[in-house]
């Protein structure tokens, strides 16, 4: 816990308070060294109220298990409770630092719950605090401390204060106060609680919405490739998940190469095209060697591609080992946007939503605006006729399959930014992505998009209500029932092509 920040704070404090000369309370030091846990915490409190600059140095040493009394070093045992008190005390002392960033960090740390014994120091800090961001935080900290102790008028004032905040922390504090023995305090706390909950509810709703879109975009990425290979071409590719896995491993390899250069943060620029190309190449080889011979025999295709997926899993295990590999995010992907007090939107997820939208737009352009897209649609609609007018149907099949596989690779590249990459990565997505495609309606790109988003939302909303596993089961059962009612999916093809 002895970070450079604390050392900087200590240094800053020396200059700030001017290094007052009188010695530290000897009794407090002895208590720190040899008292029991309660006495130690009491001593920490004493050090804080003195606001002596050397207290920081002492507390830091103490936290690492050492106290110096009269020039003698004594080893002490610090348990979690005492360590927590010492940490809070350090944060409280840092509230007096001249640097704004340090004060803000300290106030934020204390806002997550601190012992009431720090109150005098917090109030002292409040007297001099003028910063617009630090001051309200400090007021909140002071209020939550006053709520725990203080007389009735102080507690009531503190409750009113907390009622105007938006932090999830004050909600727990108020909920505690709402069960207080004193009726007046109880009433006031309940009023405050309702107000805070109302404000927090918006955050929760927003968070849920974001989680839904995020999951939807992941499902969409995983299913888009399948929408081409299965939806348009009618090939049941059970190895689709493994193509995703190959994309993720390609990202890993690119990342390892970039680590040696100085441009680590830019590795995604190379990883995105690389994962597309590698997965597309593997897909095209598979199409030429195996899948080509099984067109028109969907059940056999299912079995053969399952065999391919088993071999790919084992191949990756042989090459990279059975353990998961770690793909590190570039610096700009870490952190997030603080949308509301209780909602943080992680950058990695925001980027993946944007990425999914980009990939979708790319596919749409490719299918509707290019020659290849025209050929693919032509072959899908009427293979014999397309062949008659000179479309090289066999080659188009290979290219289209390569496109679908490449998009699976892109999905793998995106997934590698969210979690671990292992040989079994693809297995988790194969059932899901097939259901997305089937639910949306085979042969319908728009259907796939709607289905992915619907399933993403439904999953997250059910999850908030019933837990992850039950939500997943409920969704699977829903899709099974849905397909029985509407075997063609949400967006059924009408007319002649519906029979095909």
């Amino acid at each position: 816990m002895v970070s450079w920040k604390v050392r900087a704070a200590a240094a800053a404090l020396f200059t700030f308070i001017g290094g007052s000369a009188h010695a530290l309370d000897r009794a407090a030091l002895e208590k720190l060294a040899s008292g029991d846990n309660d006495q130690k915490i009491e001593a920490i409190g004493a050090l804080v109220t003195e606001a002596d600059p050397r207290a920081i140095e002492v507390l830091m040493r103490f936290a690492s298990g050492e106290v110096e009394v009269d020039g003698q070093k004594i080893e002490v045992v610090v348990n979690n409770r005492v360590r927590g008190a010492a940490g809070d005390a350090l944060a409280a002392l840092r509230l007096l630092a001249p640097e704004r960033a340090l004060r803000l960090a300290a106030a934020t740390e204390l806002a997550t719950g601190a012992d009431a014994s720090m109150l005098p120091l917090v109030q002292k800090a409040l007297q001099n605090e003028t910063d617009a961001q630090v001051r309200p935080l400090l007021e909140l900290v002071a209020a939550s401390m006053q709520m725990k102790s203080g007389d009735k008028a102080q507690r009531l004032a503190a409750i009113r204060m907390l009622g105007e905040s938006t932090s999830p922390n004050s909600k727990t504090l108020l909920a505690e106060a709402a069960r207080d023995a004193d009726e007046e305090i109880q009433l006031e706390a309940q009023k405050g609680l309702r107000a805070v909950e109302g404000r927090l509810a918006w955050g929760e709703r927003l968070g849920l919405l974001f989680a839904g879109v995020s999951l939807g975009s992941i499902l969409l990425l995983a299913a888009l490739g399948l929408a081409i290979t299965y939806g348009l071409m009618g090939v049941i590719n059970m190895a689709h998940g493994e193509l995703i896995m190959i994309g993720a491993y390609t990202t890993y390899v690119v990342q390892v190469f970039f680590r040696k250069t100085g441009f680590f943060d830019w590795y995604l620029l190379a990883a995105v095209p690389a994962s597309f190309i590698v997965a597309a190449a593997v897909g095209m080889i598979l199409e030429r060697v195996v899948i080509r011979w099984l067109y028109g025999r969907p059940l056999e295709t299912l079995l053969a591609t399952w065999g391919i997926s088993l071999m790919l899993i084992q191949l990756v295990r042989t090459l990279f080992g059975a353990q998961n590999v770690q793909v590190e995010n570039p610096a700009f992907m870490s952190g997030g946007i603080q949308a509301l007090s209780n909602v943080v939107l992680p950058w990695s997820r925001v980027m993946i939503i944007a990425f999914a939208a980009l990939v979708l737009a790319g596919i749409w352009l490719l299918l509707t605006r290019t020659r290849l897209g025209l050929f693919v649609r032509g072959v899908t609609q009427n293979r014999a006729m397309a062949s008659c007018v000179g479309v090289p149907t066999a080659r188009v099949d290979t290219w289209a399959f390569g496109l679908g596989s490449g998009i699976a690779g892109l999905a793998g590249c995106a997934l590698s930014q969210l979690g671990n990459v292992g040989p079994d990565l693809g297995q988790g997505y194969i059932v899901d992505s097939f259901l997305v495609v089937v639910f949306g309606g085979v042969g319908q790109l728009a259907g796939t998009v709607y289905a992915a988003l619907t399933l993403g939302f439904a999953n997250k909303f059910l999850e908030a209500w019933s837990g992850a596993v039950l939500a997943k089961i409920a969704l699977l059962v829903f899709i099974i029932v849905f397909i029985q009612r509407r075997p063609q999916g949400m967006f059924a093809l009408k007319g002649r092509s519906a029979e095909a």
Partner: protein
Amino acid sequence: MTRLYGPKGWIALGLAAVLIAVLPFMISSYWVTLLGKIMCYAIVAIAMDLIWGYCGILSLGHGLFFALGGYAMGMYLMRQIGREGQYQSDLPDFMVFLDWKALPWQWWNSDQFWWAMLLVVAVPGLLAFVFGYFAFRSRVKGVYFSIITQALTFAAMLLFFRNATGFGGNNGFTDFKRIVGFAITTPETRMALFAITGMVLIGTLLLARWIVTSKLGRVLTAIRDAETRAAFCGYNTVHYKVAVFTLSAVICGIAGALYVPQVGIINPSEMSPANSIEIAIWVALGGRGTLIGPVIGAGVVNGAKSFFTQAFPEYWLYFLGLIFILATLFLPQGVAGLAQRRQRRRA
């Protein structure tokens, strides 16, 4: 109507029955367990062949039916442990561990053998009947049917992984002690289980043979080859499909019930989608639309599996993957089809 078997066929079956009766006395207990397990798989393969080979429906839910039969048997075996578990309680160990005070409703009557036998048949049968009825009525077919049966299996696996479902969560059932009063690990019990499994295998083979040579079998083949025509001829194809799907599921349940006491464990990973697809490859390799083929396929693949996983564990998936690819590309009729073709050429 054709005969069930020619004289040669009956002689072969008789020899197989004698072999099953004599074999356990001649081989080590390791082989008794391994062969017993493979015979259970062979029963599943015949069930799969009935619906896929003869009716053209690829179900990826057979692993689920197998596991359900196993779980029904496992519940009874758990109750047979009695107070000899680690916690010396009347409740199965995992319930004590979860701090449950009484048996949940699913376990009603589970200490009765007849009830367990009823569940083994009824649970997979009922599930298949209801699911099949709705699926076939809405004309879900081909790959769609495969995908939704796979989704069903996957959902069931997730359900059984939960502790709250009441079947031991991801550890499932194990540490069995007794079956109908006999200690489960003694060589005698193992031999008896082996013999029973063998008899059930032969019985299943005869039943399947009887079905495919009867009029019912003809209609099933007609549905496989041209469903619309069969329907126009006046056959209600939904009824036939539901019937064969349910029967197939029941056979799987029985195989699962025989499997659990021999292997000594049942857990939700038996329901993983991969297992159901593996069943399909036993049938595909052996030969769809022949009855002896799937038995051979189950034997070859599982024999190879226990050889590879001991000798070269890292090559097993390559080998299995290759079987999947080669069998579908080059052996459309399977091994049995290959033999038939050679026979025909000679004649």
